[in-house]
């Protein structure tokens, strides 16, 4: 009996998944995004193998060499190999992007769930707070927060997350509100489910798709924000091969050694692009109605 059920479960699950996966595969842009992302993830995972040198290996004799076979992307003002730094930088970009999203989703989803489920005073307070955040140029707030916390990647992650959870709160709130009036929530109450159980068993799972899609779509902006902060000199500490920090260092040599600025930017763009393409595809397939703003 149980055996049979287990088999059934697996089968049902695979059917359910495969349909969406099939749709995703048919989504050409999504596949391109996935391929790009795979390359970047591959870079990040195998950095130690594919990077010809360490990211912090200084050799002043080799400084500001243009791209060549030996140094694919040239060298920077300290004679570090730009290609190697880019490869190691992929780790940071991915790590930062995902961490920011985890933190901001954590904040946003919790607040959104609470304010959507308990309408009334709590909702008004949270919504007002969200609105206020919305009206505030995010980069400025992030700048101020980083200044308080001190520079460093972790602090940048916190700062960016703290200023950008609003979309999550809004979307989860809206979804929750629409779900609360849905009949299955009413039915759950009719069988005696508690509030907490309703929130986590009935509402959260149904917002999950939106959250995942939103997460994919906010990773690029997280990356763009953190690199912007690094670019302004508030992010990763040298010699971390953060792409934004590389741009910050490279811009002094923009005319003499433009490769120092070109390549980090290209890779920031590619990473953001891969997530954007993937997120778009996910949205098309999973949650066509989702709006970011």
């Amino acid at each position, binding site marked *: 009996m149980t055996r049979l059920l287990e088999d059934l479960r697996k089968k049902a699950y695979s059917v359910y998944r495969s349909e969406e996966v099939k749709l995703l595969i048919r989504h050409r*842009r999504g596949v391109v995004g996935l391929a790009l992302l795979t390359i970047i993830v591959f870079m990040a995972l195998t950095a130690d193998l594919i990077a010809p040198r360490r990211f912090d290996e200084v050799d002043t004799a080799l400084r500001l060499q243009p791209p060549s076979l030996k140094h694919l992307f040239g060298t920077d003002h300290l004679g570090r190999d730009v290609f190697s730094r880019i490869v190691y930088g992929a780790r940071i970009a991915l790590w930062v992007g995902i961490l920011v999203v985890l933190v901001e989703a954590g904040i946003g989803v919790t607040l959104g769930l609470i304010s959507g489920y308990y*309408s009334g005073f709590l909702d008004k307070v949270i919504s*007002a707070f969200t*609105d*206020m955040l*919305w*009206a*505030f*140029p*995010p*980069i*400025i*707030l992030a*700048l*101020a*927060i980083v*200044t*308080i916390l*001190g520079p460093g990647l972790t602090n940048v992650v916190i700062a960016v997350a703290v200023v950008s959870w609003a979309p999550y709160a809004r979307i989860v709130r809206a979804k929750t509100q629409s779900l609360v009036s849905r009949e299955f929530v009413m039915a759950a109450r009719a069988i005696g489910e508690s509030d907490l159980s309703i929130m986590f068993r009935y509402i959260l799972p149904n917002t999950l798709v939106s959250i995942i899609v939103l997460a994919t779509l906010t990773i*690029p902006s997280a990356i*763009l924000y953190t*690199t*912007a902060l690094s*670019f*302004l000199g508030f992010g990763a500490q040298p010699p971390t091969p953060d792409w934004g920090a590389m*741009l910050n260092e490279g*811009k002094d040599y*923009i*005319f003499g050694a*433009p490769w120092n*600025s*070109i390549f*980090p*930017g290209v890779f*920031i*763009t*590619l990473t*953001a*692009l891969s997530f*954007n*393409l993937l997120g*778009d595809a996910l949205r098309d397939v999973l949650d066509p109605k989702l*709006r970011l*703003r």
Partner: protein
Amino acid sequence: MGLLSYTTKKLLIGIPVVFGVTIILFYIMYSLPGDPIKLIAGERVTPERVEELRRAWGLDQPPYVQYFYWLSHVVRGDLGVSIVTKQPVSYLLMQRLPYTLMLMLISMLISYAIGVSIGIVSALMKGKPIDGLLSVTAIVSYSIPGFWLGLMLMLVFGYYLRLLPISGYEGLHSLLIPALSLALPSSAAVMRLMRAEMIEVLNEDYVRTAWAKGLPRRRVLVVHALRNAVLPVVVMLFLDIPWLIGGAVVIETLFALPGMGRLLYLSIIRQDYAVVQGIVLIITILTVVFNTLGDLVVAALDPRVRVEKGEGM
């Protein structure tokens, strides 16, 4: 509801937002590490002198006293004096604001002109190769960091082609590259929204009704579809202000433009309380005003908005 009371109401709602933002900011500035007085005092100044300066600037007071002091002056139109340059904040702002406004205006013109027109074209060509091409272009430009784009444009137009000034302000043409770097990523967002809205509206029942009535194609597309599709884009136009200002901070810093964004960046670094407060106050007020303007425009365009929706219990 009358126009006046509607506007007043919307503006009244904005007041707590302005207060909230300034209070939060004040405490943030207060908790910034480092001591602005020591920063301005320099290397050769004695501790007694530091204390004297601190008293003179009122920085020995608890933060809420400082806030109310600041607020009471703001109400009288006095934004205070920059601790670094000793110039009145309002003077500094007046000097810088035009550049930032101009930058924002130009970039908004560019991004909305590009975004709206391409969005419409793309929506009407939905599913055709040209739509795919435009959409991909949009996603790509959406993924480019504005500051890097600025750097590249600077390299190409300013250095290689020597067409435009590299940085600094030498006249309106100096704003072209910065505005472009601000506008391109945002135009992609506009285009995507415009396209999505247009496609959605084209699928609306009332557009089908318009076709069924036998109206000419242009009338259906412009009068019935576009009119409704453009609404969210207009809303976005007004809601985008904070984002644009945020972008201006980076772009102005990169291009060394004498605008408000760069002043803000410098003032945060130098902990020039009064200037930061003043700029953020202006930004928040601008945001609230533009949001209200946006609401008004929406209300003018969409008759449904004027009826207040009720709330259940």
